């Protein structure tokens, strides 16, 4: 349990997240690969989730949607290599609203004294695609611009 460590270096098209959990790697793996479990944790609580497909084997596809009152948002990808507790999960990610903007994510489940250290390594084709998806700017030079854009969209009334 604890803080999510998030590393996103300016100029490098990668995001690494590290998080400790008080549960063994086997359980995290189940939470990742069983649709009934995945939909209980992935995404913000305010969004309903539907897992349409989750075929956790080499070449298998996944597709899920987040829904709110304004609409639904589909994501899809493919598993590369056989997902396992030992080797982790290697998969592609694509938001269907931005087709072709794909990133690669490797999830590793490292056993620790207290449970598991989850390491998510997301690699993007370019820094720009990373920053577009990873609001980025948080840790990069675009930070101030995006904060101002956030403020702007938060305060302006619909035209």
């Amino acid at each position: 349990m604890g803080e999510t460590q998030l590393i996103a270096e300016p100029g490098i098209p990668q995001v690494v997240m590290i998080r400790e959990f008080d549960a063994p790697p086997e359980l995290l793996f189940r939470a990742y690969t069983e649709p009934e479990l995945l939909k209980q944790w992935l995404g913000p609580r305010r969004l309903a989730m539907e897992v349409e497909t989750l075929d956790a084997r080499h070449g298998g596809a996944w597709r899920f949607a987040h829904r709110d009152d304004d609409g639904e948002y589909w994501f899809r990808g493919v598993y590369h290599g056989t997902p396992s507790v030992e080797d982790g999960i290697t998969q592609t990610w694509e938001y269907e609203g931005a087709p072709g903007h794909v990133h690669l994510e490797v999830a590793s489940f490292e056993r620790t004294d207290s449970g598991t250290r989850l390491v998510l390594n997301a690699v993007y084709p370019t820094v720009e695609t990373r920053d577009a998806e990873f609001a980025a700017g948080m840790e990069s030079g675009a930070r101030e611009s995006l904060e101002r854009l956030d403020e702007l969209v938060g305060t302006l009334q619909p035209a």
Partner: protein
Amino acid sequence: MADKQLDAVFGALADPTRRAILARLTDGDASVSELAAPFAMSQPAVSRHLKVLEQAGLISRSRQATIRLSHLEADPLRDATRWLADYREYWTESFERLDELLASLQDNPRGAHHGRDATDR
């Protein structure tokens, strides 16, 4: 929001110069020369960026005497930032929920703390 427009918005936002132009426009409408000033870039080059932003619906343009002003349009941006803004929040909240799920799985290894039971494996 139509997929095609969202594509255009994401495409427009993928460029750092265009993001900087949008950030400048949060301070108010601006002419091409005002927008070009912070960049080592010709006015025609900035105009090309403005055209991309206009086609994505992120800005509108008007004329005041001989000056062409750009104006920020917030609506498409609001739709796009739904996904741009909150990567960290998305994962932080997901991991908190995962903590809860893992705790309930350790109490009851067969399945879920709500919804249907997990299927047999």
